[in-house]
């Protein structure tokens, strides 16, 4: 099927009234939590997982995707008006966005952020649409050996591109793999690490791990700080940017979109890395770098375009290969598995409606966000006045109800509490939980594919090297491994993350 046929199939699916509604809910919810500092898209998606059980797979993915890119819009609103990043990816938007607001140009800053994001969203949607069919060709050639090698590559990439210490990232991946081993072994049916508890015989629940590690931990960490209510100082008088603004902004938007699209595809990438890199790039190539930090419109336009492009293109490895590139995408894998959709290249060929529906819904969602957000800025800002002493207990209660409803089992509620505390420990130790989640999700798959490939080859391990696609992944993995060990690259990597 050609590109237009694919897109029209997608629009046909995404434009059904129910799916439009879930797209809107996702985009609005994303904006909401994007505006509120202290509640991020990872925590939100983790907490909403049980709700998606009742939806169709397409509606569930549309809503969760909407939360992710919606948060990029919402985050910039808080960053510009309050000088507090609503989202980690809008940290750099604070630098120049807030300065613009202080100069009475809050309106143009918000408008440029939204329009830049929208442009980036459109381009990213097209990129996904062009990219996907190429990979779909490969899908039919994938057997257990190919999947295993692909996952080795995915896990290594997660380590290389995680921010912070490599050693800690490796440790977290391994811990994730170990947690993934808990439960009944598929091949022998033996119980592993269950300590005689029947509740553990199906393994540790993904929802409990995700909610605890991301949702609960985030709330606990926020509670450590005394409650600070953000003060809204800037007034939004006029919205529309001037001609000069547009002239200054269009090139940064293009550069930000390009950079964000590329960084989004890389494992470990996504919105956060994209916005930082785009800002740095603009500052480096600017004629007068001293303007940055004092209200330069380029400093808003480029990172905002980049983070939205990155947020969207990070769906490419997920939807085409089933490999999550960051924690949000790992949660999406979980959502797909809950819906009975096995992530992998076959999603494109076997469920084209799901695949193209999600992609086109992103474009629709972006359009909704631009139309809704600019007029509604005042309302979102009012939300910042909701006291956290009301917000947090409500979130906790919904978490507990949500996880209980998964299999009507109180054991799972205890598990979130446990993983919430574990997440706090990781935070204190400076260990990122995202590699752990990737290991936890990919580990059981990896083991299953490894053993199945060996069973089918009757124990002949060369099967991973004699099948060309598998060999290709393993060579790429070896190269990645070299870069971790090579001193030159390590230095480069450390420099890259100093910017954070």
């Amino acid at each position, binding site marked *: 099927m050609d590109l237009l046929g694919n897109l029209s199939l997608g629009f046909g699916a995404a434009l059904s009234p129910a799916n439009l509604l879930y797209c809107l809910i996702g985009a609005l919810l994303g904006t909401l939590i994007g505006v509120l500092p202290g509640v991020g898209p990872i925590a939100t998606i983790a907490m909403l997982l049980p709700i998606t059980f009742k939806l169709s797979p397409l509606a569930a993915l549309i809503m969760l995707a909407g939360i992710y890119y919606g948060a990029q819009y919402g985050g910039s609103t808080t960053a510009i008006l309050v000088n507090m990043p609503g989202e980690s990816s809008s940290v750099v938007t604070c630098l120049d966005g807030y300065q613009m607001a202080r100069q009475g140009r809050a309106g143009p800053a918000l408008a440029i952020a939204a329009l830049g994001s929208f442009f980036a969203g459109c381009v990213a949607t097209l990129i996904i649409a062009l990219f996907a069919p190429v990979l779909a060709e490969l899908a039919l050639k994938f057997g257990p050996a190919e999947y295993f090698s692909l996952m080795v590559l995915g896990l290594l990439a997660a380590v290389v591109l995680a921010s912070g210490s490599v050693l800690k990232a490796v440790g977290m991946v391994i811990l994730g793999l170990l947690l993934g081993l808990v439960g009944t072994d598929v091949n*022998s049916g033996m119980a592993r690490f269950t300590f005689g508890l029947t509740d553990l015989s199906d393994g540790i629940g993904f929802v409990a791990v995700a909610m605890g590690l991301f949702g609960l931990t985030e709330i606990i960490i926020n509670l450590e700080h005394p409650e600070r209510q953000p003060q809204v100082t800037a007034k939004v008088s006029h919205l529309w940017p001037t001609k000069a603004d547009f002239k200054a902004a269009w090139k940064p938007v293009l550069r930000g979109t390009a950079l964000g699209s590329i960084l989004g595809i890389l494992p470990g990438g996504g919105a956060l890395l994209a916005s930082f890199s785009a800002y740095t790039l603009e500052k480096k190539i600017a004629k007068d770098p001293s303007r940055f930090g004092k209200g330069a419109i380029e400093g808003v336009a480029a990172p905002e375009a980049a983070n939205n492009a990155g947020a969207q293109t990070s769906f490419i490895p997920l939807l085409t290969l089933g490999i999550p590139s960051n924690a949000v995408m790992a949660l999406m894998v979980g959502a797909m598995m809950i819906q009975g959709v*096995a992530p992998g290249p*076959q999603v494109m060929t076997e469920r084209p409606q799901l695949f193209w529906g999600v992609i086109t819904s992103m474009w629709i969602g972006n359009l909704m966000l631009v139309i809704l957000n600019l007029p509604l800025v005042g309302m979102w800002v009012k939300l910042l006045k909701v006291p956290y002493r009301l917000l947090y207990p409500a979130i906790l209660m919904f978490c507990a109800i949500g996880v209980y409803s998964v*299999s*009507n*089992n109180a054991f799972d509620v205890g598990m979130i509490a446990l993983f919430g505390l574990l997440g706090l420990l990781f935070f204190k130790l400076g260990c990122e939980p995202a590699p752990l989640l990737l290991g936890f999700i990919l580990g059981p798959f990896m083991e299953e594919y490894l053993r199945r490939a060996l069973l089918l080859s009757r124990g002949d391990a060369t099967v991973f090297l004699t099948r060309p696609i598998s060999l290709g992944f393993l060579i790429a993995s070896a190269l990645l491994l070299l870069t971790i060990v090579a001193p030159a690259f390590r230095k480069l990597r450390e420099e890259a993350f100093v910017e954070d």
Partner: protein
Amino acid sequence: MTPRMLAALIALVLGLGAAPALAQTYPTKPVRIIVPYPPGGGNDIVARALGQKLTESLGQNVLVENKPGGGTLIGAEAAAKAPPDGHTLFVGTIATMAINPSLYKEMPYHPVKDFAPIIHLVNYHMILVAHPDLPVKSVAELIAHAKANPGKLSYASFGSGSTPHLGTELLKTMTGIDMVHIPYKGGAPAIADLVGGQVPVMFIDTPPALTHIKAGKMRALAVSPAQRTALMPDLPTVGETVPGFGFTSWAGLYATAGTPAEVVAKLNGEINRILKLPDIHEQLSKLGADPVGGTPKNLAEWMAAETVKWAKVVKDSGAKLD
């Protein structure tokens, strides 16, 4: 006439009306049916259809509660420990009631001592399918192919100790062929790999088999029960080639042990009636399931026979869980 009176009358007509006061007042509160699988599967659909009909005739809500996990042990344990008053029922299956005792060294419940059988609900047919590239069109050709290529053939199943696994092991011991077991976590990934040509042979449930067979992505070789099924009357049984072979996956309804006999009798009568309704028949046939019915004693005897049958298969195949 109130629904409760109607129910009592029906019980009377069926010759079970000798029940004393207890059966006349039962149920006094909503009844829950525990299903040890997630929503959406065959057993869940059967339980929900049954729950709806029972709600109409018993005058109390009869609700389905899904308690999946632990290879059905979690749901079974919860049902075994419920108060024996007939307000907690359990959909026990071939796995929970006949196979698990041979697989697990330690069980959190005892299928006979902890449960009171109510009625044998349904038997599910399974279909033996092959990938179209495998050059076999019948069970006889499969056996010949396997014998000509010893140790080369693999077969898939929904998991270690699942009915398709043990059913194929039974076929292997009865015919002396050798195939390597490739277990999967549940039906969906196993079916995906069979369609993708990674594994050539498997026993699968009827609903997914029908779609793939129609699309030409699987070739149906035979059905698993001793008799041919109404859904695909042209498809032979495995037993026509391998005399004495036959199995079905099945489900029955159970109460906690110690539930008054009058309550069990009342439910048995009700459900025997429900299983004969035309709309239930239609729903079941879509699932590839045959309604069974009968007395609680029939179910107890069936269970005992199945337990012996599968214990031998488990022992012969060397499958053992912990």
